[in-house]
């Protein structure tokens, strides 16, 4: 049973017109967010996206954008308390 977090929240965007069908996004995604149909990638399960950024970094065509960050309440709280912009997960 796949774990489900909040709905309609992921900042993931795929520009299918740039997609070359290399399949890297399918290889690197830990939650099977993408599928490939007729040689082009598409988002199969947006709500499963944890915004890790693996797909965006590894897409050779720059077709994917996402705002990566740590899905960690403690890091966000620590950043707020220290008034810094970047939630930090240690070193």
């Amino acid at each position, binding site marked *: 049973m796949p774990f*489900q977090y909040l709905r309609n929240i992921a900042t993931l965007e795929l520009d299918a017109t740039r997609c070359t069908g290399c399949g890297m996004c399918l*290889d*690197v995604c*830990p939650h099977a967010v993408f599928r490939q149909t007729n040689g082009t990638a598409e988002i199969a399960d947006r709500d499963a996206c944890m915004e890790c950024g693996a797909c965006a970094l590894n897409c050779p065509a720059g077709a994917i954008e996402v705002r990566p*960050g*740590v899905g960690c*309440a403690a*890091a966000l709280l620590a950043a707020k308390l220290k008034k810094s912009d970047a939630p930090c997960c*240690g070193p």
Partner: protein
Amino acid sequence: MSENETVECGCCGGAGRNEPDRFEDEKRFTSGTIDTPAGPVPVVPAELSRRDRWGFWKVRLGIFRMSYKVRPGLYAVGRPGPGSPVFASANYKASFDRLRQGLAGVDGWILVADTRGINVWCAAGKHTFSAAAIWKAAEEARLASVVSGATLVLPQLSAPGVSARDAEALTGLRAVFGPVRAADIPSFLAAGMTATPEMRRVTFPIGARVALTPMEVLPGLRWGIPVTLALAALGWLRVVPFPGRFLAGFAVAFLAGSVLAPVLLPWIPGRAFSLKGALLGGAWGLLFSLLRGSFAAGTAGWLEAGAAILIFAATAAFLAILFTGSSTFTSMTGVQREMARAVPLMIAAAAAGVALQAAVWLGLGR
């Protein structure tokens, strides 16, 4: 043992001590060397020693977890040659040990990059584990003189920080992403470096969730125990009445949020972690009040029951939301949204609970 220790990072907030030269003693986990054109390379067995296994327990329990490092460089597993695959690793020893366990029966090289002792996933997220870091390790180990025409196998969970294309361009090796779990490496290799969809998915089974709970509980005990002892001392000195039963109830609420919510995670209603915690804490508050006889104690009793339910719900909700950082599927945007909604509610509930309890102490309802 958790298969997912390279994904979760149950240590948020700590500055981390990166003592540059404190590495685990190689003599304790290497079994000799093999000669290469770059000099002798340490050989590591694929089987873990008792000391290695104790190391996994230590980090799960938070004992010296921020300094459990392997010296970066090249290591050998089995009897590798110039064409054997090169497996990239972080220099967190638990990551390294998990990798070599997966290489049982494999002849290969392990290239350990300097990730300052941080595991693959977290280091990749911070871009500490990157193509550049791998290249730096390869250069320093003179990998180019050891292998030729070999494939660089990247842990899939390094993908947020490692671009396979950049790794290829820098090292000159063909780079592929291996499976999420090192245990799947032999099957991955046997299938010609192809992964099944299952090998590429991260799950969050109950064993993994249970293994994370010590780090949800132990940090809380660091202040919880002194505060309780202080209150007990003040109570013994008759400076304040010692709220023993309430503290016991509060401790259970703490455990509801830090242990029960993670363990029962998929079965508790609600998508938000704080909601799951609130449900458990609130239910405990209700049970606690029933056991205390609050509902048979007039208006004051009902007010105290309300206080317990609100405070325990807020406590468990807060601890449960802290588990987001240890989970394998929460996004930053999602956690931001959840926090924006849940934190004001938790504060309001706790404040309301305290107000109700204070009202009872001040004589309301009697």
